[in-house]
């Protein structure tokens, strides 16, 4: 692996962690519950990106299945929060 790709991966990991920090800011003091749900969904998307960068960095695709689990958790969390906000119950 060339040092060029290492520098690019470090830059993109830095950008992703800054994004996680901004989303945590919105998650902590979002004025509504839906803001917090959107921030949680974005955090799960950013973790998918972090997993992809770490797969390239470590040269192994052992953890690539976690992409599925994180996407499912983000979707189910947002959908159930929306159902709860509308109906007052989830099911």
């Amino acid at each position: 692996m060339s040092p060029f790709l290492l520098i690019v991966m470090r830059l993109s990991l830095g950008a992703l962690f800054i994004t996680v920090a901004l989303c945590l800011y919105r998650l902590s003091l979002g004025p509504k519950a839906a803001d917090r749900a959107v921030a949680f969904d974005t955090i799960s998307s950013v973790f998918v990106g972090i997993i992809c960068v770490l797969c390239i960095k470590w040269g192994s695709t052992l953890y690539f299945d976690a992409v599925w689990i994180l996407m499912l958790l983000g979707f189910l969390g947002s959908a159930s929060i929306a159902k709860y906000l509308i109906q007052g119950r989830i099911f």
Partner: protein
Amino acid sequence: MPTIVELITAILLLLGSTLMLSTGIGLVRFPDTFCRMHASGKAGTLGVVFMVLAAVEYFFGTPHDVWVRGGLAILFQFFTTPASTHLLAQAVYLCDYSVSDRTAVDELRKFLPSQPDQVFNQE
């Protein structure tokens, strides 16, 4: 000197992380819940797609090839993120409605009943 594969991977990673960073900045700086959903639903989806494409492209042709899992993950992301964002926007619009002062047009408002219980909870 980087090879062609590493160059394409680097370009995809930079595109994806830039879109992700713009998603975070939009989440903090936009004035309204709907604007924040706009930032998260569009730029976040495209950023994830570029990140997964970077991983798929880097491992393409090597013994651990992930293009089936990566392609299905991209398809799944394209299906689920608009659905969840639409559900959340519907919930906020019906139950907890407030927009910022700079909103110019809201055409849906005059077609909706005043109580959200008249739309849902009809059983």
